[in-house]
């Protein structure tokens, strides 16, 4: 079978090659294409090609550029000639991911690839149409050399005052056809001349190998120690944040997200800077630990309670795994000299965030015990991902990833930790539980009204203490300070003075100092002298007998009246309802202005709504091997049946002499093939009213959803919109 188009090539490869292709370009099997023709169309579409190019490193991209600088078909030899002999393996990779494909007469590029990488690959102009004597370039007069020097490394265009009246250098070059006029004012340097002047190579320098990552060398043991400290810290941060919100939910901004002032309050509470605070709030959000309720208040969700009961390793894994895949970049919050972006807000998504994060982590993983320098790290990053769509934030995203990985404990002292490696390779993380410092079950109370927990406290104790005392200092240990306000808070939470006292003396290894005992006694004595409660309506009457009467009236049971003073009764129905019911029962109530009732909610809030974590925008994940294998089977089967159907249809068409009919995918496949083969086609084309006419055309190229072709009937080049082409058949 002759093999010229990309689909021909795909039909010829084995399953292993498919696997490699799909692994590198998961978008090709999401959803699984019906047959090889549609697979080929998808693989040659501009978005998919751009994605594939994104995955290239600098050397692979250089080789691709060199390939694009050659006329098709080309050979490995011709590529090596203009690059380096290392190009062979790079080319193999390019073939493997379908950016270059072999055909009968040599290598070719998928038809739209040139559109994606631009018309001037590596700053090279088009090939010269005229024949030129390349060696004569060396004889160029000095003025001409000057002009050439400016154009060698691209862009290959230069402007001249007037093409009809050029300077002596340009004139000589034009005469020798070393420059080609484009229009009245522009000249262009042909590809051959530029490559010759570049010394026969396309690039000034071939970046074959990844640059070395330099930075401080760390000791593995120290790295792990630092990382485990970071892990315990980040868990504590999240817990403290959510406990804070359980007490005092923040109000979300109308535009969504957390206000600057609230962020500051949280940052003070946690004792970390604002960018770290934003990171922690986002972590909680990504992991569904918080939810926005109907009033747009930010509160812990039910999942928080479940999370708290898990082991540290599980808790950490949830946070880290959500962080790894999110498209949100919390580093955008509070950037200096940039528009203010709110944490938890709608503006944090960046399409390449997860990809850059993954790349950053993989570079770290390849270089254990190195805490990279920023400069060196960026060099490696640029080599690994030289051309990216939306590349603007790449460097910043990578730096944020380094910072956040440290906060999370994926790294310690800047180098990847064993926990980080295990997390990234999907190993069991229970080692974290073993390595975290052992929890302590006691505190030391001192006479200056502080209590010190000399290590991470057991969860129950730390919850209780956080209620009774203010945290003054955090870290391996925690310093708590008792004051009137904190004791009051504990009493507000329903503890009694005696409970506080007995909890503290039970938990403390040291005897309870007397001033603290007095403090607790003093505050609890005063606490609750004033009583506050919720009510909807009150009934007031100076006649206590009448009050007793309504309290005992069976018909009023529905009101669930409560007598809080001899002359005052309250109920939970609103005033209008209460009055109505009273009137129905034959009483004669009158309304009283009911302002000044303070409404306070329950202290520890949970949202009633279901958490809605942000969705992940960005790259398509690589499906597992089973799915890929079944995708291949599906394509193969589809291919067989399509083949049969096409034959049947063609036979029918021929019999009926009807307009050609093909499926959309077949259309694209055929068009791509006949463009290469430079054949004329017969197509059915629908006009604005839906009437289908028969046209004979010479296809030229496909661009932006249209087929550019010469119409035999008019002899003009015109564009045919692809969705309107009802079918294609070769003549």
């Amino acid at each position: 079978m002759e093999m010229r188009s990309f689909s021909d090539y795909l039909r010829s490869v084995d399953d292993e090659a498919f696997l490699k292709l799909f692994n590198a370009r998961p978008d090709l099997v999401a959803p699984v294409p019906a047959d090889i023709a549609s697979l080929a169309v998808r693989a040659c579409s501009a978005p998919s090609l751009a994605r594939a190019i994104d995955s290239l490193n600098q050397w692979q991209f250089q080789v691709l550029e060199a390939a694009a600088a050659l006329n098709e078909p080309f050979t490995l030899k011709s590529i090596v000639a203009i690059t380096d002999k290392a190009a062979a393996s790079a080319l193999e990779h390019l073939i493997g991911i379908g950016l270059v494909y072999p055909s009968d007469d040599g290598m070719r590029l998928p038809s739209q690839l040139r559109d994606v990488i631009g018309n001037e690959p590596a700053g090279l102009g088009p090939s010269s149409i005229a024949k030129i004597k390349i060696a004569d370039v060396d004889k160029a007069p000095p003025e001409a050399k000057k002009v050439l020097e400016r154009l060698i490394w691209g862009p290959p265009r230069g402007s001249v005052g007037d093409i009809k009246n050029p300077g002596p250098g340009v004139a000589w070059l034009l005469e020798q056809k070393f420059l080609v006029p484009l229009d009245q004012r522009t000249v262009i340097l042909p590809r051959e001349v530029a490559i010759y002047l570049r010394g026969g190579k396309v690039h000034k320098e071939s970046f074959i190998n990844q640059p070395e990552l330099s930075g401080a060398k760390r000791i593995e043991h120290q790295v792990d120690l630092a990382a485990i400290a970071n892990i315990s810290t980040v868990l504590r941060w999240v817990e403290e944040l959510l406990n804070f919100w359980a007490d005092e939910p923040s109000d979300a901004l109308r535009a969504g997200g957390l206000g600057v002032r609230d962020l500051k309050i949280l940052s003070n509470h946690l004792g970390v800077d604002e960018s770290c605070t934003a990171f922690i709030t986002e972590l909680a959000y990504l992991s569904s630990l918080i939810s926005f309720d109907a009033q747009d208040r930010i509160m812990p969700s039910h999942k928080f309670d479940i999370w708290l009961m898990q082991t540290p390793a599980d808790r950490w894994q949830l946070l880290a795994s959500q962080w790894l895949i999110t498209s949100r970049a919390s580093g955008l919050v509070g950037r200096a000299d940039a528009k203010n972006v709110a944490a938890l807000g709608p503006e944090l998504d960046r399409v390449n965030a997860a990809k850059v994060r993954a790349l950053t982590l993989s570079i770290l993983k390849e270089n254990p015990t190195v805490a990279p320098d920023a400069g060196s790290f960026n060099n490696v990053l640029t080599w690994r991902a030289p051309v990216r769509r939306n590349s603007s934030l790449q460097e910043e995203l990578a730096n944020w990833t380094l910072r956040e990985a440290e906060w999370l404990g994926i790294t310690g002292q800047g180098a990847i930790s064993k926990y980080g490696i295990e997390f990234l390779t999907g190993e069991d993380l229970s080692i974290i539980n073993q390595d975290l410092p052992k929890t302590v079950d006691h505190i030391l109370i001192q006479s200056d009204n502080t209590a010190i927990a000399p290590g991470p406290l057991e969860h129950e104790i730390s919850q209780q203490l956080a209620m009774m005392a203010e945290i003054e200092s955090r870290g391996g240990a925690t310093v708590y300070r008792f004051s009137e306000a904190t004791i009051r808070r504990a009493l507000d939470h329903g503890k009694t003075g005696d409970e506080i006292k007995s909890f503290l003396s039970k938990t403390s290894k040291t005897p309870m100092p007397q001033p603290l005992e007095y403090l607790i006694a003093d505050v609890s004595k005063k606490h609750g002298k004033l009583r506050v409660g919720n009510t909807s309506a009150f009934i007031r009457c100076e006649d206590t007998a009448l009050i007793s009467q309504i309290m005992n009236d069976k018909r009023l049971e529905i009101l669930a009246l409560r007598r809080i003073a001899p002359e005052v009764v309250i109920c939970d129905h609103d005033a209008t309802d209460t009055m109505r019911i009273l009137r129905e029962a034959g009483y004669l109530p009158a309304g009283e202005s009911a302002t000044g009732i303070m409404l306070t909610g329950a202290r520890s809030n949970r949202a009633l709504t279901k958490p809605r974590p942000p969705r992940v925008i960005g790259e398509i994940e690589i499906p597992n091997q089973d799915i890929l294998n079944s995708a291949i089977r599906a394509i193969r089967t589809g291919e067989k049946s399509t083949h049969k159907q096409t034959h049947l249809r063609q036979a029918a068409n021929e019999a009926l002499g009807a307009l050609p009919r093909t499926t959309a995918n077949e259309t694209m496949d055929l068009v791509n093939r006949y463009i290469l083969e430079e054949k004329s086609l017969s197509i059915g084309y629908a006009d604005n009213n839906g009437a289908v006419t028969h046209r004979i055309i010479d296809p030229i190229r496909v661009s932006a959803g249209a087929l550019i072709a010469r119409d035999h009937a008019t002899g003009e080049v015109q564009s045919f919109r692809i969705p309107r082409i009802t079918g294609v058949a070769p003549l």
Partner: protein
Amino acid sequence: MTDGPLIVQSDKTLLLDIDHPLSTECRRAIAPFAELERSPEHIHTYRLTPLGLWNARAAGHDAEQVIDTLIKYSRYAVPHSILIDVAETMSRYGRLRLEADPVHGLILVTTDSAVLEEVIRARKIQPLLGARIDKETIAVLPSQRGQIKQSLLRLGWPAEDFAGYVDGQAHEIALKQEDWKIRPYQELAAEGFWHGGSGVVVLPCGAGKTIVGAAAMAHAKATTLILVTNTVAARQWREELLKRTTLNEDEIGEYSGAKKEIRPVTIATYQVMTKKKNGVYSHLDLFDSYDWGLIIYDEVHLLPAPIFRFTADIQSRRRLGLTATLVREDGMEGEVFSLIGPKRFDVPWKEIESQGYIAPAECIEVRVNLTETERLSYATAEVENRYRFCATTRTKRDVVEALVKKHQGEQILVIGQYIDQLDELSEVLGVPVIKGETPVKEREILFNKFRSGEITTLVVSKVANFSIDLPDATIAIQVSGAFGSRQEEAQRLGRILRPKSDGRGAKFYSVVSRDTIDQDFAQNRQRFLAEQGYSYKIIDADDVFQGKI
């Protein structure tokens, strides 16, 4: 993870578990660079501050040592950010140096020309500089040596001062250790100061700061100016120096409101130094009147602003600051660092107590209940009068009476803030009162009588807060104070901390009105001492009346 005694917190505090076997060793290791913040009974808190770290650099420690020490003693992993911060902060010290150049006089030299470029562009620094000598050197106006150090510190680029000190006019001074011996910590303090050149020594009240001063003078062997808080303190310094050193009466002068003597060793009061005549500080010339080799600032935490300004101009003389608490209510610790010098010596109170150099003290808070009428008037009193009202309630008088009766025969001081209250107490107790208007002569007579045991009880106002030497006072009863001043509480306790001849412990009573702002202030006042490990015991006024204590 080791099992060390130290926990390094992420907010740069260091918690030292003093029950740990390595705690003493660790304390010695971290003391050079960390500031002791609190030393209650179980866990001491130190803090890493830029000043502390620069202090350590000044004393010849480098970041490597500091980091090694932290890691060595730390129980948990030391937060990486702190290690970075330590290295970063310490590397800022010493990039700029002040030196004396034989040609250009005082010069500012750098090892990093970018830093020099940065600082000479600062608006505050520019007017202090002379001509640019080369890329790394610039001349400094010699008169601005203190000013430039102060301004550079504020910019975060502290300059190391290598310009040296003038020796001053030599004068033979030696310690006269015949019937007494200098204590080891006093000697350490004096030596620490002498090696550092200038600086501050922090010692508890009653721990013998005067002797540290005398020992420093013996090191300097030069004419000395001593600045003290008031005349009584001046006289005590004089007596102490006569007793402890080879100086004789003619060599020591007093420069105060009463006398204006200038001798090789001159003791001047802050009050006279800051007295203005026609809008100028006429007495500040004293600093120039002699070629002083050493200047001692007693109670440096009280140093008034004009003297600070003047101190900036005498940077070539050695300076020693003495204090019990470096807590300044005005937050001018940075000025003390750059103008007097870094802290050279510091030791927890309880450590000295355990060595027996200060008397063990028991702190007792006596809570009195206001009567119903008092409560009502308190509740309706104007906010600004509330403290005065509850601090001077009638009930306190009865408690004081009962306490004085209970401790009959012991030397008792009754200390308060409000003169009316003190007058009333003096009348009720039938004992003399010393207040601001009491003439110095009369004060001395009373103090001497008190010392000799002729009178056993004295009522004193805040004039007695500082530097009066009452060797045998064993009981102090505080009835009111300057609101929530922690430092005042410490000074007052200091009055009874001198070791007693019979080894008896001292008692410090603080009488407080229950459920009032008085109680809130008391809590704040007690904080410093509680942080020094003094545990307060709270009792009821009724217990006092019933003799239960």
